[in-house]
């Protein structure tokens, strides 16, 4: 079963070599056995079996959608009707949404089966999955016997895919939350263009940056899953009106003549040499398949991270104001009046990293500081986006490292927030400019830990991006798997 990809399982189901019930049962068992990884917050085996039975019935009649009968894991940031949704926070308490997010509704319409809700950094704020109220997630990959983080914020989804606890998973990416964990758990992660997947029903972190996307074992799987996640949604004002292309078909044709840009500003001082070496290798792989390699410049790159750490907390401070203990979620006991209720409920309900970002965001929007911080950051954002527009006059996609290093140990970056934020240094520019980014596993460190390379595409050109990703994947031939240390059996 662990050899299945989304594509091969789909074909096996269609060919009736296996039933969705069998597939689903096997994953339910794997999920139960893998509880030490803490990848799932909520397991939904009964629902999964029910959905699998319905899928089998449809498949038996020769019917079924693009994902019919395929068991998936859902990041616990997507609201799922009737299934507890926590966003990794205590403040949502026992929140049971009376509605289904557009993305998950699309998946169920395509026939997918829900295995459960995966762990994440609280409100998707983090790069290590250590800030979850449900506790940290462990990376299936270890450094010897040292446990490592899976990255964040979609750490549960990344571990679930890497540990074969689902066929594929959904993630969300605000500053790198799909691509960074994908890279350091050895899987594929795609952040689509802003607006390609509806944000409706996804617990908001930073509205102008958040974007849902697939986390999968292969590039083809990412194409398949994105095809079902994406839609035109009249309920999200910022989502695109462009029709959803056939991404799997877009994989065909190779990359002959594709111009691949290498942004020189991504060569950072002090970066581990093996990151740079892998990057060079990636360029060679693509060149060997007929791509043209061009050096380009993204001059405002170094301002991306500080810009992000103004814009994202500012939006978050406002988005998280609705968690006030009045209509849903955690409410503090024994309060003296409404202000006390707010202050205590929020202090008890939000973890420290979330509180820190709310404070940053509140500060940069407050009277007297708005122009110096928020207004300036939004102008920088315009400049960062212009850099990409300029670069894309010379190339079709960009190739960069995905992360500054491999998975790290728990607690290793938590003393200094800025050090932790640096994990997103290569991914965050993409969110600021609204572009699609794809992380593809490309090799192992000397210590045997996975590293990824990132491809960045033009807006709404996921097709080209995926085709380049397939070329990279084929050349890298990353077949490594973590040894299973987590199952009791």
């Amino acid at each position, binding site marked *: 079963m662990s050899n299945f990809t989304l594509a091969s399982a789909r074909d096996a189901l269609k060919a009736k070599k296996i039933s969705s019930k069998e597939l689903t049962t096997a994953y339910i068992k794997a999920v139960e056995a893998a509880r030490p990884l803490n990848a799932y917050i909520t397991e939904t085996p009964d629902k999964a079996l029910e959905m699998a039975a319905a899928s089998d019935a449809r498949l038996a009649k020769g019917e079924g959608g693009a994902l019919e009968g395929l068991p998936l894991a859902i990041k616990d940031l997507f609201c799922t009707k009737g299934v507890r949704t926590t966003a990794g926070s205590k403040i949502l308490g026992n*929140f*049971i949404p*009376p509605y289904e997010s557009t993305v998950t509704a699309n998946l169920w319409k395509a026939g997918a089966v829900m295995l459960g809700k995966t762990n994440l950094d609280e409100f998707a704020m983090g790069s290590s999955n250590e800030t979850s109220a449900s506790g940290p997630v462990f990376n299936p990959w270890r450094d010897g016997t040292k446990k490592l983080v899976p990255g964040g914020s979609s750490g549960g989804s990344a571990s679930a895919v890497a540990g074969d606890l689902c066929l594929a998973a959904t993630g969300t990416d605000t500053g790198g939350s799909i691509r960074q964990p994908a890279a350091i758990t050895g899987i594929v992660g795609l952040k689509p*263009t*802003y*607006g390609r997947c509806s944000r409706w029903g996804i617990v908001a972190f930073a509205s102008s940056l958040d974007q849902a996307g697939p986390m999968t074992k292969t590039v083809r799987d990412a194409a398949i899953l994105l095809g079902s996640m994406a839609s035109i949604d*009249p309920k999200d004002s*910022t*989502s*695109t*009106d462009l029709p959803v292309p056939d991404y799997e078909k877009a994989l065909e044709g190779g990359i002959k003549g594709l111009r691949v840009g290498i942004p020189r500003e991504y060569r950072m001082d002090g970066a581990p040499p093996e990151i740079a070496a892998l990057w060079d290798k990636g360029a060679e792989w693509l060149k060997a398949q007929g791509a043209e390699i061009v050096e380009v410049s993204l001059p*405002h790159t*170094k*301002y991306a991270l*500080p*810009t992000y*750490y*103004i814009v994202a907390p500012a939006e978050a*401070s406002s988005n998280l*104001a609705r968690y006030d*203990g*009045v*209509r*849903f*979620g*955690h*409410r503090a006991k024994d*309060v*003296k*009046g*409404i*202000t*006390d209720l*707010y*202050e*205590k409920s*929020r*202090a008890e309900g939000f973890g420290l990293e979330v*509180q*820190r970002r*709310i*404070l*940053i965001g*509140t*500060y940069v929007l*407050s009277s007297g500081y708005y122009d110096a911080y928020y207004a*300036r*950051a*939004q*102008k*920088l*954002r*315009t*400049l960062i*986006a212009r850099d990409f527009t300029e670069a894309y006059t010379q190339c079709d996609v960009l190739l960069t490292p995905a992360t500054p290093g491999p998975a790290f140990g728990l607690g290793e970056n938590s003393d200094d*927030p*800025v050090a932790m934020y640096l994990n997103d240094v290569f991914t965050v520019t993409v969110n600021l400019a*609204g572009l699609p980014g794809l992380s593809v596993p490309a090799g192992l460190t000397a210590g045997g830990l996975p590293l990824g390379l990132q491809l960045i595409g033009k*807006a*709404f050109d996921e097709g080209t991006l995926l085709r380049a990703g397939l070329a990279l994947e084929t050349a890298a031939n990353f077949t490594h798997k973590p040894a299973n240390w987590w199952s009791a059996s």
Partner: protein
Amino acid sequence: MSVDRDTVRRIAKLARLAVPEERLDQLAGELNGIFTWVEMLNEVDVTGVPAMTSVVAQKLKWRVDEVNDGGQAQALMANAPAHEETFFVVPKVVE
């Protein structure tokens, strides 16, 4: 622009977060670290640069004026920490 205890206290009040006195100094330190770091943005001349208002080329969606939502007071109360009939209930607010 240095963040001190009082600033943290004021910001926490605005954000409706109860921050214990003993955490104020530590938070002030952390925030200062972050704000010192973001000060590098001041290197850039942003004169005449428009602030970003839409990330990708997309026009705002409009909806038709139809009543197609509401009528779900019970569903709204299902997650409420306190409610009476179909009112949300909070401690008395003094005007």
